[in-house]
């Protein structure tokens, strides 16, 4: 069983909804990311999504775009991101780490080489925003051989046929994008999300995480009642941005924010 599958099985047994924070690797600098990852786990994160910076993040809103720009300003490369995961693994062998980003940095390295290096570094899953199943056959093969899960997005526009197509190749969990829009976009309609999750669960046996548009503890708690995982990105990255001049304060500040989300989710899980 992969580390991701094991993690979700364990959470399910304890009746607990996963909290998955997203941060961009190398934002605001290379040194902050690993301590931040540990602080997030200490504050109650169950899995971590680590954004691989890209020059043209076409599915991201302004907050995560700027995080990418900050990380690229000092040349955070894919291999630096893998180094961070390797370093994180020295002290944490349990928490699954998922890399999230765009295809081109992986493409230039070569799928097989990337899969081998990512696996050696301790990466558990990959989410490539611009590689739908139709275009990711070879990538799937390489990642499977290396024992890495390929996590896919599902959207409000995904119909039954698409949900099935994705279900046939996804592993680990699937990530439901709760709004039509970019990361950090507007408000999610919980009734719509609930209906769509029911459809997804009927067609795909994997755990389902919900993200995009979850900004506060209250929304996190309400999503926790429906989903297997609550994914929070822009709300965290926005707080990092406010502290770029004081990076040493970032792990504690983000830890505090996540602890609040964790408490709200736990409250929902008990209810």
């Amino acid at each position: 069983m992969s580390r991701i599958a094991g993690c979700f099985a364990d959470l399910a047994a304890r009746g607990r909804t996963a909290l998955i924070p997203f941060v961009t690797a190398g934002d605001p600098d290379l040194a902050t990311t690993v301590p931040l990852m540990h602080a997030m786990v200490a504050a109650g994160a169950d899995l971590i999504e680590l954004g691989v910076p890209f020059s043209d993040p076409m599915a991201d809103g302004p907050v995560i775009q700027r995080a990418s720009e900050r990380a690229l300003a000092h040349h955070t490369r894919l291999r630096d991101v893998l180094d961070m995961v390797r370093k994180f693994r020295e002290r944490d062998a349990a928490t699954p780490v998922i890399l999230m980003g765009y295809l081109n940095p992986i493409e230039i390295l070569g799928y097989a080489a990337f899969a081998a290096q990512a696996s050696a570094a301790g990466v558990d899953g990959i989410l490539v925003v611009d590689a739908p199943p139709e275009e990711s056959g070879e990538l799937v093969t390489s990642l499977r051989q290396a024992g890495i899960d390929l996590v896919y997005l599902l959207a409000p526009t995904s119909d039954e046929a698409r949900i099935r197509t994705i279900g046939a190749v996804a592993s680990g969990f699937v990530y439901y994008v709760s709004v039509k829009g970019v990361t950090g976009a507007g408000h999610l309609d919980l009734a719509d999300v609930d209906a769509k999750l029911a459809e997804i669960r009927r067609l795909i046996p994997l755990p389902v995480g919900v993200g995009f548009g979850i900004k506060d503890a209250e929304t996190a708690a309400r999503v926790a009642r429906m989903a297997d995982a609550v994914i929070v990105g822009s709300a965290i990255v926005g707080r990092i941005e406010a502290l770029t001049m004081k990076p040493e304060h970032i792990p504690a500040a983000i830890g505090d924010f996540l602890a609040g989300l964790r408490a709200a989710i736990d409250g929902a899980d008990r209810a």
Partner: protein
Amino acid sequence: MAINHAEAGSEAQGQTQSAAQSGAQAKVQSVTQSEDQTAAPSEAYHWPDARGHFGPYGGLFVPETLMRPLDELTRAYARYLQDPDFLAELDADLRDYVGRPSPIYHAERWSRELGGAQIFLKREDLNHTGAHKVNNTIGQALLAKRMGKTRIIAETGAGQHGVASATVAARLGLECVVYMGEIDVARQEANVYRMRLLGAQVVAVKSGSRTLKDALNEAMRDWVTNVDNTFYIIGTVAGPHPYPAMVRDFQAVIGREARAQMLERLGRLPDALVACVGGGSNAIGLFYPFLEDAGVELIGVEAAGEGLASGHHAAPLCAGRPGVLHGSRTYLMEDSDGQIIETHSISAGLDYPGVGPEHAWLKDSGRARYVAVTDEEALAAFHTLTRTEGIIPALESSHALAQVAKLAPTLRKDQAILVNLSGRGDKDMHTVAAREGLTL
């Protein structure tokens, strides 16, 4: 003009006849053949495949939210290409609103001065709004209307595609938002004002390199958000399937006309076609109906900026390598980590780090040849054509002209080069004046 109108008529007929046939390929090929019996058989070239691939290039590399809307677009496009009403409306608009067919002009004086091949200009600069871009926006806007979309968005570099989009939006009463990099907004202010006059909202994009690629990113973000009521009119043969094929088909009217016009004028096809390549839409529009004509050399001209060796250029086919950006796999300007690098060209319309996937395929397959000319060479050609023929070309088109100036003297006087004069230079007055230290 009388002859030209007759040709437009026969073309409309060709399109209507083709309505019975299936698929975009069949349609484009049949139009070509109905005009000229000597056209080569069409089995050989059949790209893209059903999923939008040109060999290893092209495809559909987009976020999940756009997969179904793109599928809907692909279906709608395939359907309306066989709808006689749609094709009749398109033809009528191209004739009455754009002013097609555009003439072929023999640049006799310039040919004489260069002392080699005879040079013919395909006058896309005479189209309404001043460039080839409108051929495509007319087609896509008609499609948007048929699909019930009330809002159109577009990205633009030089502003020509933005103007062409704002123009058709005004005419059809559609809301229009144009994304334009902040740097391009500054260097193409006349076009920005034109778009605003036409009722479009121009959004200056401040992210990334603040040029065309970032405008495209921002338009994609808008589309993901407003996909229910919004049609994204991409301005070149880049982007995810079906855009590269669809934009090519709408622009192929250039090559269909040119082929018939050259046959009529010379009794044979030209020896070489030359066109500038930004995303590649004016080039593929000219080349496509000639792909099966093995005797016609196809030459695409990229922007070498300050020179390929300087690294300050926009020539992915000449100096880049394959990767994935903006929905398709194609040649890109990227660094060794797969980050897209900033491009440079004096012409905003060529300042783009990618290129349409079909050009990547034509390059690898050897059917077309791609070269690059510098800012200086393009400027020299700009002045030469202006002074020699009384035609002020767009800086983009001037890149193609600069290549013609190199090629023509190497050919015989009885040979012919057809160059796509993709647009007029009115929008570039400020840029050219600034190079000479003047402010207008």
